[in-house]
């Protein structure tokens, strides 16, 4: 089974990743309820912008490329995997890190717990994982562009970096707007 073959089934499978990425944090924290669907639009917006922007750039560029939106959308969906993993793990880590203050008063005990090796390792990954996931997303997006539109890796990375920052920024403000509407 070719996961990247240009079929509707593969498109739906790849779309599941940004949707799951949006759902997973509130799901872990608060369980299954209707409210968690509000998280999804942010990641769908990022998914959309990451598909549309490069597709239009390449189609209207000096050396025109054919529109390959469906195939590119399938690739971009899978690029969300590092962010999905990061959202799962950081949420679990946050719960674990907060347990460090469970049933404690004494500063000395708090200090002892904070210097515990396992706590330090958890803390490192809590802070580092979103960074690693974000950079991985940029690199995977660049590789997707290279694969689908057959451009050089250097060009694809140069487009992927600002495109990702722009998409995340726009999605953040649209998410706030959705919140205000409700």
């Amino acid at each position, binding site marked *: 089974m070719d996961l990247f073959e240009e079929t509707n089934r593969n498109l739906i499978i790849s779309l599941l990743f940004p949707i799951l990425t949006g759902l997973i944090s509130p799901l872990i924290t608060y369980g299954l309820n209707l409210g968690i669907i*509000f998280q999804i639009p942010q990641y769908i917006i990022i998914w959309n912008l990451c598909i549309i922007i490069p597709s239009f750039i390449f189609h209207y560029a000096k050396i025109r490329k054919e529109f390959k939106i469906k195939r590119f959308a399938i690739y971009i969906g899978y690029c969300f995997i590092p962010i999905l993993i990061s959202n799962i793990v950081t949420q679990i880590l946050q719960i674990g890190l907060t347990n460090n203050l469970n049933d404690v008063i004494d500063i000395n005990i708090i200090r002892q717990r904070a210097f515990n090796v396992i706590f330090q390792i958890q803390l490192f990954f809590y802070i580092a994982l979103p960074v690693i996931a974000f950079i991985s997303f*940029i690199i995977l997006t660049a590789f997707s562009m290279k694969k689908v539109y057959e451009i050089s*890796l*250097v060009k694809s990375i140069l487009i992927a970096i600002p495109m990702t920052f722009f998409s995340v920024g726009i999605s953040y403000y649209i998410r706030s707007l959705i919140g205000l509407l409700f």
Partner: protein
Amino acid sequence: MNKKKITSGIFIGILLLVSISSSIWYIDKYNVKPRIIDVYGDSYYEMGLMYGSQVKNIVSGIGEVANYLEKGLPLLNGSTLEEIAQGYLAYTPNWAIQMMWGIANSTGVDFYDIVILNAFADLAQLLMLMVYMGCSQFAMINNTYHGLGPIFGRTLDYPAHNIFDNWQIIVRYDPPNGNSMIGVTIAGWVGFLSGMNNKGVSMGISQISSEEVEYGCPMGIIITDGLMNYNNTRDIQQYLTNGSISSIYHAGAWCYFITDKTGDACIVEITSYNNHTNWHSDVSTDHLVITNHFVSSEMIPHSFVPGPQESTLYRKQVLEEYLLIKDNFDLKDAVETVRSHYDITINGDPGQGYENCICNDGSSGTMHAFIAVVAHNYSLICLTNPYRAPFYLVSFTEVIGPVA
């Protein structure tokens, strides 16, 4: 071929540079240790010099922003910034004026710009620039973990939080006269947004929208003045409402939340002309809560809006009916409370941060979370959105962390 390799190498270098810079910025944002400063001295002017020298870059940056704003702000009846500053200075305690002079001289920022910075929140009220806020404050008085004592917690929410949270610092004061204090504030402020002293008292502030605002003492300075000079809730309440220092005339409309280690807690609702106190002892609950609207029926008519904004009521309800209903409320519960995105309007958590939540990313996002363990003289502080960052334990002698 060599030229291609060099070009590829340059672009890969750019990628590495962007990645590493972004990573360092992101990680450094959550490392608050460099932003904790200790301020002491034989005089308040010396304290100001010490303060300013430690945050010179941040304050200078704020000073530049103030210069741009000065050109665009609609000033009051054609008043200059110096005249406006004089309006606040007339009601400011002398120790604070001395400190502001010290900060001005050590940072190179004009003294009147420092005064305006310190009065910024009250001035914004006077200019009707900001109406709806998202701060939540609570105290768990009874039913805390055995031996923990009362806990005060708050989130501070403000528009343009993405800018302001970079200007926040933690200050530990050891003044020549008065109590030692820990406070969260904006660099260049001599006052606090949230704070506690070494006599087991904590104070926080929430903004109310009211037309009853005038020149007076800026609220941050009032908080520090209260914590520095008084040792319990009752005395601070008297100070806020009777003006035991003759120059304490309140500039803006605020709710001061005071908690002490004996479990005495109150909310003092204040405008420039009116005030009312709500004592925890008058309610039969384990906790006390305030968001951004007047609670007392006597004070509600003095609010700018006809009634409380819905989001403030939802947040109050979330705290009183869900988050604070816990047995043996401990520090973990306090951290989870200030991190909560719980929104009762949709019967659960959207995973988002809207104004109905305690911790939110909306138009008035959460800038910091402050938890005061008043009976044990330490605090838990997160200097950015607490949902995304760890907490540090800050006592009067040490900084530990992250701890959660």
